Structure formats: structure tokens, C-alpha cells
């Protein structure tokens, strides 16, 4: 209705903010590159120094695009889970789905020594990692879904998610105990989370899977809206609940799995961003919330990455540490607040 104009205004503002964050993200880093050269490079002109050109196109730009895909993907995942579980505390990390992806990767990286040599090459290929992480994510997500069917209580599902997290952590510890120092180091670095490890090829894979997931998501926007009334009302409105649930699982599993494989388990973005979005855009209509969540997720991830780089210093913080510093207080605030909005 008359809200439409205020929504488009908000989207324009968010778009401008996103653009600004991309530019800031590109211009800050361990090497000080003038803003003018950044713009020159991006618009296709040769900048003053060739190594600046290289840094921007082969390092900073891929990293910024990864941040956008990771931030928006995880946030969409979180939103879908919050609607599906009708639970404001649902999210890929809290429900243990990221842990599931970690288990997949750990099994591949740490457990691969037990298999024959031909598998080793596959294990360390990015496709192998993405596949393992997705399978792990699906596995835990299905398990949580099964339990959530019996347990309706918000807090119980949260605790069950944490238990799944501990359970996978325990399996990973056992795997780690039996693996070599090299493998262990590789795994541990992966868990720190990083947006900077992706080349253009990996970004292409990530983008394709991202586009597939989001296209699938658009087919269930309508049933997701009716699920806001609860399952029985949704069914009475003609929703095919099983199909909707399966597509939601597929989309969240795929997004979380692939993103986690490439960038490591990144905490709290999927949980915190949907809430942040619903504070800014006060609607539950998925037609509006999904794009808003995607943009805000991208912005938050770009900002987190900019902070993680500690501009003008040689050091880089693990991205996971930054997102946790930002996300954990939001969860505490949510629990303290009385009314919980899905």
C-alpha cells in the first residue's frame, strides 16, 4: 500500500550504503593506495603503479565480492531458518549447521589419510571441500529438523543446536587426534574463517551456486509468507508444506555449506542480520525482507572485513573473531528483550 514508497526509499539508501562500503573496503588495506587510483583501476584505466593494479584486481576486489556473497548468503540462510522454525534464535551457526559443514570439511581434510592416494587430490580441491561441507550441513540440518518436529519450545531447539555443535566438535577432536600436524594446521586455519582465499575461479563456483539457491528461494516466497501464520494456517491456505520445507532445507544447506567450505565457519551473521533488518524495515513480508536482508548482510560483512584488515597495519584479524564480537551481543540483547520477533 502506501508503504511502498518508504520501502523504495529505504532500498535506495541501503544501495548507496552498500556502494560506499564496497569503495571503503577496496581502499583500505595493508598497502596504502590512494582512492583516485582505486577508481581508476575499477573503471579500466591503468593506474600509477602496476602492483597497485594487481593488488586491487587480484586481491581486494575478489575479497570484496566474496564478502558480499558470504554476508548476504548467510543472512538469507538465517532468515529462512527463523521463518521455518518460527524461532527468532535460529540461524546457521546457532543451530549447528555451520558445525555440520565443519564436520564435513574435517572428515575430508583430517580423515583423508585413511583413504587411498587418489582421494587426496580431490580432498583439497575446492569442489571437494564444497561438497563435503554441503553434505555435512544437510546432515545436521535434517537432524535438527527431525528433533524440532517433536520439540516446539524455542529454548530447547536452541540448546539442541548447541548440542549438535558440541557433538560435531567432539568428532572433529577425535579426527584431529589421529591426523598429522600438517593436516591439522590446514584445518585450524580454515576454521579461523577467511574471505581472502578465493580466486576468480572459486568466486565463479560460489556465484553459480548462490544464484541457483536464490532462484529456488524465489519459488517459495509465497508459502514462506503464509508460514508466518503457523503451519496449520499455511496448509489451510493451500501450501504444500513438505515441498516448502524441502526447498528451504535445500537452499539453506546449499548456501551455508558452500559458503562455509570456501570461507570457513563464520559466526553470528546468519542470526544477527535478519534481526537488524527487521529493526530497520518493519515488515515480515519475505518479498521485501529477503532482498533487504541480502543487502544488509553484504554491508555488515564488508564492514567486518574492513575492520578485520586493521587498515594500514601488517596484521589481519580472523574474520570470525570480528563477526562474533558483533553478533554475540545481539543474541544476548535478543534473549533479554521480552518480545521476540521472527
Amino acid at each position, binding site marked *: *500500500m502506501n508503504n511502498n514508497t518508504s520501502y523504495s526509499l529505504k532500498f535506495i539508501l541501503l544501495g548507496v550504503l552498500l556502494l560506499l562500503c564496497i569503495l571503503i573496503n577496496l581502499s583500505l588495506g595493508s598497502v596504502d593506495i590512494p582512492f583516485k587510483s582505486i577508481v581508476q583501476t575499477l573503471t579500466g584505466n591503468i593506474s600509477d603503479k602496476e602492483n597497485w593494479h594487481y593488488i586491487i584486481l587480484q586481491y581486494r576486489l575478489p575479497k570484496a565480492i566474496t564478502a558480499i556473497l558470504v554476508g548476504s548468503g548467510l543472512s538469507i540462510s538465517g532468515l529462512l531458518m527463523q521463518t521455518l522454525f*518460527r524461532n*527468532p534464535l535460529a540461524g546457521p551457526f546457532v543451530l549447528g549447521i555451520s558445525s555440520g559443514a565443519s564436520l564435513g570439511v574435517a572428515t575430508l581434510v583430517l580423515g583423508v589419510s585413511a583413504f587411498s592416494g587418489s582421494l587426496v587430490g580431490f580432498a583439497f580441491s575446492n569442489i571437494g571441500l564444497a561438497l563435503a561441507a554441503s553434505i555435512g550441513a544437510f546432515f545436521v540440518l535434517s537432524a535438527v529438523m527431525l528433533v524440532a518436529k517433536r520439540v516446539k519450545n524455542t529454548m530447547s531447539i536452541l540448546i539442541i543446536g548447541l548440542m549438535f555443535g558440541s557433538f560435531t566438535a567432539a568428532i572433529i577432536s577425535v579426527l584431529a587426534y589421529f591426523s598429522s600436524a600438517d593436516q591439522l594446521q590446514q584445518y585450524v586455519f580454515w576454521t579461523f574463517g577467511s574471505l581472502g582465499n578465493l580466486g576468480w575461479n572459486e568466486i565463479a563456483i560460489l556465484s553459480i551456486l548462490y544464484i541457483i539457491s536464490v532462484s529456488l528461494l*524465489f*519459488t517459495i*516466497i*509465497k508459502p514462506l*509468507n*503464509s508460514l*508466518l*501464520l*503457523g503451519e*496449520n*494456517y499455511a*496448509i*489451510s*491456505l*493451500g*501450501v*504444500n508444506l513438505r515441498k516448502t520445507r524441502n526447498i528451504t532445507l535445500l537452499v539453506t544447506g546449499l548456501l551455508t555449506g558452500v559458503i562455509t567450505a570456501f570461507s570457513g565457519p563464520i559466526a553470528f551473521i546468519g542470526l544477527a542480520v535478519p534481526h537488524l533488518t*527487521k529493526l530497520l524495515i*518493519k*515488515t*515480515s*513480508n519475505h*518479498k521485501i525482507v529477503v532482498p533487504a536482508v541480502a543487502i544488509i548482510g553484504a554491508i555488515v560483512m564488508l564492514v567486518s572485513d574492513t575492520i578485520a584488515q586493521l587498515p594500514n597495519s601488517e596484521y589481519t584479524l580472523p574474520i570470525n573473531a570480528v563477526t562474533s564480537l558483533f553478533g554475540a551481543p545481539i543474541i544476548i540483547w535478543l534473549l533479554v528483550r521480552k*518480545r*521476540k*520477533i*521472527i
Partner: protein
Amino acid sequence: MKGTTSHIIKTTNLSIGYQSKKNTTYVAKDINLTLDKGVLVCILGKNGIGKSTLLRTLTNVQPKLSGEIILNGKPLETISNAELAKKMSLVLTERIPESNLTVYELIALGRQPYTNWIGALTKEDLNFIEVAIQQTNIKDIVYKKHYELSDGQLQKVMIARALVQNTEIITLDEPTAHLDLHNKIEIFQLLKKLSQDLHKTILISTHEIHLALQLADELWLMNDNDILTGKTEELIANESVAKLFSSDLVTFDLKSKQFIINSD
């Protein structure tokens, strides 16, 4: 007198209850009843007798145990969710989960069986919503969030949502529970008006005996052993209503159509 065509719902030897892996719990067996077009029917009975179970089974929210439910000449189980959504709308007892939905958005969701893949509202949809808002008299609250409403307002909104779904049958499970007297009467009068003016078939499970006796066209009285159905006046006259809640505590007063507490 009654042609079979006027039956919207007809059940044959219907058994309702709950089935788990190990055992089957029957709530009621051998239910044979019919629901006719355009009537207001109230289901009355004690707590736990199976009013809600019957309602849930007839609306396909819960599977039947055995027997047959025929809706418009077709077995209920052969009708898809999407098709059923255009024939029957529900007002349930369950609370809707918290969200940012406004009253208007909530009512608009009732148009989902008719909207396109993304749920865009056409002019016709907007018209249905406008009419339902007028019929339920909730113009003042349409831009409020649903969690800001009182129980009475929310119930009217849920009825508006059901109206927008444009179905022949509307079923309501205890629509006036938790409401004060004023709101109870208002809701019942609204439902009566909808069945009279729009020829909606309305099926209500309720504990509001005095309101039901005054407003319902027909009653379904659920006892431990069977379900008595018939016109309200007939069931009052042949003392079926009086027997339904018969105990040492109350007697039914035919004149005032009320149960009166016995005084020793």
C-alpha cells in the same frame, strides 16, 4: 425434503481420534452427519468430548481413522490442499507466531489460494480485502501490527482473513474463548450475519450454550456415545439439549433457553 445436493459435507461411519505407532485412540466412532449449505451450526459438548478433533478431521488438519468424509460429492482425501483452500477456511485456536505482520498483510494472506506465484495482489484481491474489512468492522486497526490487538480484535481479524479466502465453508474452533461477554456476542452476531447475508456455511465448536441456542440454525450435540444433530428448536423441544449437560448441579430452563444452577 432435503436433496442430497444441498449437503456440502456428508460423513459415513466416520471414526476420529489419534493414531500413533503403537496404538489408536478413538475419540468418537460411527459418525454419520450432514452439513447443509448456508446454515450456522454449533458443535456443543463437554470438554474433551472431541469437538475440536471432529472439526480438525472435517477440515483435513488431522487424518481420520476410518469411514468417509464427502465434500461437495468428492472424498475429502482426494482433494488437494490448494483446491481445499478455495472451499474451506479456518479460524483455529492456536496463536499465530510473532512477526511483524500488520492486520492488513495478515488479512491479505487469505488471498493466497488465488494469487500468482509471488503472491501479488490484483485489483480483485484488494476489493475482497476491502469488503472483508468493512464486513468485520475493523477499519480502525488495519495498519496496526497483529501483536498490538486485543483478543477480540484479533478474532475479528482472523474472521476477516477467512472471509477473504472466499470459501463456502468457514469453520471456527472456539472463536470466543478468552473473550468478554460483549466481544462474545459481537463475534456470534457477526457470524450469524455472515451466514444470513452471504449464505456462508459456518461451523463453530463452542462452549457458549446460551448464544448457540439463540443464534445457531442447527446443533451438533456430542455425547459420550453418539452425536445428535438437528434443528436448534427441535433439539431443545425434545430435551436433547437438557440431557447434554445433565447433572445434579444444573437444570435446563426451556423458557429462557438457559441452564440454571440448582439451589437446594
